[in-house]
């Protein structure tokens, strides 16, 4: 049986479901992550990302379906799973009343690294996450970003073959974010399998080999970043108007240049559309001019999670939060 394990995906979930009372927070979730690859689980707050991670890391039992991590069932072989995973949860789960160093040494001890190795590993990680200067201070005195970095360091103490990071860059400044991305790329190049959740399309794009978009507890789209971006559209043209009665004219002018029908927002006096390859800002301005549309502002920006949701579900992420 072990012979076949190497051919199986490192993380696989089939029909995962979790409910609280009558409310399903997760339903019919299937996931497959091949060894040494990165899956980005992309979705807004409350979509079910954390619930998925908690099930896959044995913290939570699913009400439906099953999952295997590193070849073992998360429900029935949970101790074996825990011996093969690292986790950085969404809330920074570090001990406030210990120093940063003591936190990492404790985790190393619990991974049975041995005292000396645990200490060496703690030093190494403190250095890598720019925490050496604060190593012996109580975590209580750390800033939010420092806690987050320590939490991530804690998940890497044992260089586990499978790593789960729940919104790892939330609360990090851009520099720390870039540094973390470098660390993660290095780990994956070394054979680590990574599942990370994020609210940022850009982050999933930069790091993930495959992306699963999750919405209201269900996977609504999956594919490589390129496939998903092709569906969602890479760049958006945003036209801001001076008055509401020009919305229709602007949408009409943009339609021939857009990959999908333009979306009008009367509140913001904006028309947004994913542009096709080769469309330039100049072309957009010219088209608007020909349609006699007086725009207050015309710009291009890259697609956001909101754009992705708009395209994939037909509704924006904000509607989702209100519905939940």
């Amino acid at each position, binding site marked *: 049986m072990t012979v076949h394990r190497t051919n199986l995906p490192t993380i696989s979930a089939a029909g995962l479901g979790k409910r609280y009372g009558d409310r399903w927070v997760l339903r019919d979730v299937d996931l497959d992550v091949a060894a040494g690859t990165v899956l980005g689980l992309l979705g807004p707050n409350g979509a079910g990302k954390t619930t998925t991670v908690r099930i896959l*890391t*044995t*913290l*939570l*039992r699913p009400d439906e379906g099953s999952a295997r991590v*590193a070849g073992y069932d998360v429900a029935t*072989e949970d*101790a*074996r799973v*825990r*011996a*093969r*995973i690292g*986790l950085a*949860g969404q*809330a*920074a*789960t*570090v*001990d*406030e*009343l*210990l120093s940063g160093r*003591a936190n990492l040494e*404790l*985790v190393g*001890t*619990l*991974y*049975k690294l041995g005292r000396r190795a645990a200490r060496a590993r703690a030093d190494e990680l403190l250095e890598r996450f720019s925490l050496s200067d604060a190593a012996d201070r*109580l975590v209580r005195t750390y800033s939010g970003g420092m806690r987050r970095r320590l939490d991530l360091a*804690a998940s890497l103490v*044992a*260089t*586990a*073959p499978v790593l789960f990071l729940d919104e790892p860059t939330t609360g990090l400044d851009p520099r720390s974010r870039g540094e973390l991305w470098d660390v993660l790329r290095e780990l994956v190049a070394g*054979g*680590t399998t990574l599942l990370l959740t994020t609210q940022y399309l850009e982050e999933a794009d930069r790091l993930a080999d495959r992306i699963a978009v999750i919405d209201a507890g269900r996977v609504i789209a999956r594919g490589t970043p390129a496939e998903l971006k092709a569906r969602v559209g890479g760049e958006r043209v945003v036209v801001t108007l001076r008055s509401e009665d020009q919305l229709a004219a602007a949408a009409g002018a943009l339609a021939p240049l857009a990959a999908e029908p333009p979306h009008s927002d009367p509140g913001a006096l904006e028309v947004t559309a994913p542009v096709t390859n080769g469309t330039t800002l100049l072309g957009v301005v010219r088209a608007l001019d020909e349609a006699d549309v007086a725009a207050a502002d015309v710009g291009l920006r890259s697609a956001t999670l909101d754009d992705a949701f708009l395209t994939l579900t037909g509704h924006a992420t904000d509607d989702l939060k209100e519905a939940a």
Partner: protein
Amino acid sequence: MTALADPTTVSLATRFRWAVGDCLALTRRNLTHVRHVPEKLIDVTLQPLMFVLLFAYVFGGAIHVSGGSYHEYLMGGIVVQTLAFAVMGTAVGLADDIRNGVIDRFRSLPMARSAVLAGRALADTLSNLIALAVLVIAGLIVGWRIDDGAGSAIAGFALVLLFAYAMTWAGILLGLLVRTPDAAQGFVFVVIFPLTFVANTFVSTPDLPSGLRQVAEWNPISAVVAAVRDLFGNPSGLPADAAWPLQHAVPVAIGWCLVILAVSVPLAVRRYRVATAR
């Protein structure tokens, strides 16, 4: 890549060694908290010292016990009361751990799940004993003595240790049930406080009105207090017609400690699984 600390691939002896190591690592962690935040020990150090002074010098003059000095009588009561109040510190500590997510970190690691509770029990028992040492020194200063020989004194301290351990587990169960520090405090005030006062802790039971006297004499706290006094050779203040538990205080006290453990440990373990798997 290799697996880390997979408990299913090693011998039973190694697994046991790992579990003990996990428990000690968490014990050390909890004791480090006390070192960094010594205020945590105020409940079990300053407060009992205040009671010693209050009862020895303010109320003591008005309370009489048969067969000896009130200062000697007092200490057994305050030692037991202190340990009963200590359930609050344990409950608060555990409720805090669950609330701020540290338990999630532990639960995702390849460690013995029992270590979180066992480490808490061991650490809190040890820190409560440190507090007791302070109390004993204060007792010696106000005139308390162990009057019954070394063997009996050792038995006395062993009983105190057993009671401290049992109370820690009661505190763990409380922390898992209430989940907030305020509620733990409320429970101690409403339940533990009367329990330690409607007893032979500070007064001898014949001085109590009928009805209350029976409650006090059957109160488990009274049995433990009477047993501690008995083993330390302090005046017992026991009337000739004391209720059965007080006549057999030592075995009854041990029995109560074992009952508390037999109830608290399995309930706490079960509650821990439920409370943390949300």
